[in-house]
């Protein structure tokens, strides 16, 4: 399969000498894959993502995105990547929603009409056409996130990078947002990288999971079902298991045995019925 992102082992030193070393296993994202990057706060998720986007360059190690070094040649690949970083507020540029979503198309040389058409289409797809003339700073947190996502997807990129897209949302909005991402990515066949520290939600959108430990090491990789049941690993990574997983672990310790490893409520009900 075509590899979109390839990172072997890299080290970054911030100006204040904080050293982040993300080594261990290779970080690879293939075409069409949905990858979650799970780690505690301060683990280095944002650092990794900034390297992928060419905002930082490693002091050691090599990073390849679409086959090029993103720091040096970001211009070559920028049209193929859509991004929403941690602080949405600072990424919404246009004064109104429509103009903000039109920003990328206009800057990539599309005409005024084309851009407008593209923006309207994506807003429609997101179900937020009614927001189009609103001024950005009068939107709620959840709405801002949707607009930022629309702005990132308006040019139909091949890779979508989201840094903690759920922080600050309540559970209901989180689920809504996940559904939106899943649906859009399905439709557009986009590869996705999402960083998060929310273990409960990971299983709902990721095909593959990477763990970053609080000591800035990247090592475990696997499907959510595999990784979430490695409780030793999770402990090492100072992460907690999701509630369901914890429940089944406790039950197993009490002497029950199950055939499957459930990761959500429905599966848990099935397993418990037996």
């Amino acid at each position: 399969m075509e590899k979109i992102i390839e990172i072997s082992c890299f080290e970054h030193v911030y100006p204040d000498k904080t050293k982040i070393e993300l080594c261990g296993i290779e970080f690879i994202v293939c075409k069409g894959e949905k990858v979650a990057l799970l780690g505690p706060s301060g683990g280095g998720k944002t650092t990794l993502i900034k390297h992928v986007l060419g905002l930082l360059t490693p002091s050691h190690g090599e990073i390849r995105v679409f086959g090029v070094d993103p720091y040096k040649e970001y211009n070559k690949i920028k049209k193929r990547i859509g991004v929403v970083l941690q602080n949405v507020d600072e990424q919404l540029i246009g004064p109104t929603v429509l103009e903000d979503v039109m920003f990328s198309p206009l800057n990539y040389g599309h005409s005024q009409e084309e851009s407008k058409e593209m923006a309207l289409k994506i807003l429609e797809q997101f179900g937020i056409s009614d927001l189009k003339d609103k001024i950005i700073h009068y939107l709620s947190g959840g709405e801002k996130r949707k607009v930022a996502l629309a702005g990132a997807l308006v040019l139909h990129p091949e890779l979508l990078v989201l840094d903690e897209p759920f922080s600050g949302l309540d559970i209901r909005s989180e689920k809504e947002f996940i559904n939106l991402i899943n649906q859009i990515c399905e439709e557009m066949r986009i590869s996705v990288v999402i960083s998060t520290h929310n273990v409960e939600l990971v299983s709902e959108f990721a095909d593959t999971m990477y763990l970053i430990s609080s000591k800035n090491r990247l090592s475990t990789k696997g499907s959510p079902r595999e990784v979430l049941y490695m409780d030793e690993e999770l402990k090492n990574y100072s992460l907690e298991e999701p509630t369901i997983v914890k429940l089944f672990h406790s039950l197993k310790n009490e002497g029950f045995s199950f055939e499957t490893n459930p990761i959500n409520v429905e599966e848990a009900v099935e397993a418990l019925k037996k």
Partner: protein
Amino acid sequence: MKIADLDYYATFGNTFLHKVPVKLKLFDIAIILISALFIKNIYTLGVIYAFLLLILMFSGIPRLKTFKISLYPLIFASLFLFSVNNLTLPTALNLIFKVLCISTSFAILILTTSYIQIFKAMSGFLPDIMVNILFNTYRSLFIINNTLDNLLTTVRLRGGVSIFRPVYSLKTIGNLVGFFVIKSIETSEKMYEGLKLRGYSDKVFCSRD
């Protein structure tokens, strides 16, 4: 009055003045400006000012607030008037009317027209970089305004600054503003990252119609 409030009225207000095209409003302002600057007859100036007040009365925008805003430049004007030997009433009135005409018309403008529209109208004759800076400043204003609000609230909740220890208070305010400056600079860095990632090509910032 805070900029955020002004912007709110401009954006969500719904008076007849909100519906007048921006270019026309700017044209009117230009006329008022020129007449205020070149007319020397205080009666004519007084009539213009009365006319502006009349508009204000019936426009449906918050009258008292607008009026208060428009008085601000008088502080400076009075400083100049105090420095005139043998000041006569006509001279004083002349200057006061001039200043008030201009500030009132701008106050009415800003309460009925959002910055976005004004900047767009101005983008015709300002260089690209200036237009970009204007739009970006407008956006920045609202982002860092939140930060400032939070900071001021914190200081209040944690005891506030007192007038009785001027040096200590000044240092606290210095720390506060220093923090605010650092936060803002970081905000600007993040904004630039955002711009870059979204393909900013240092030409277009915002659609022009």
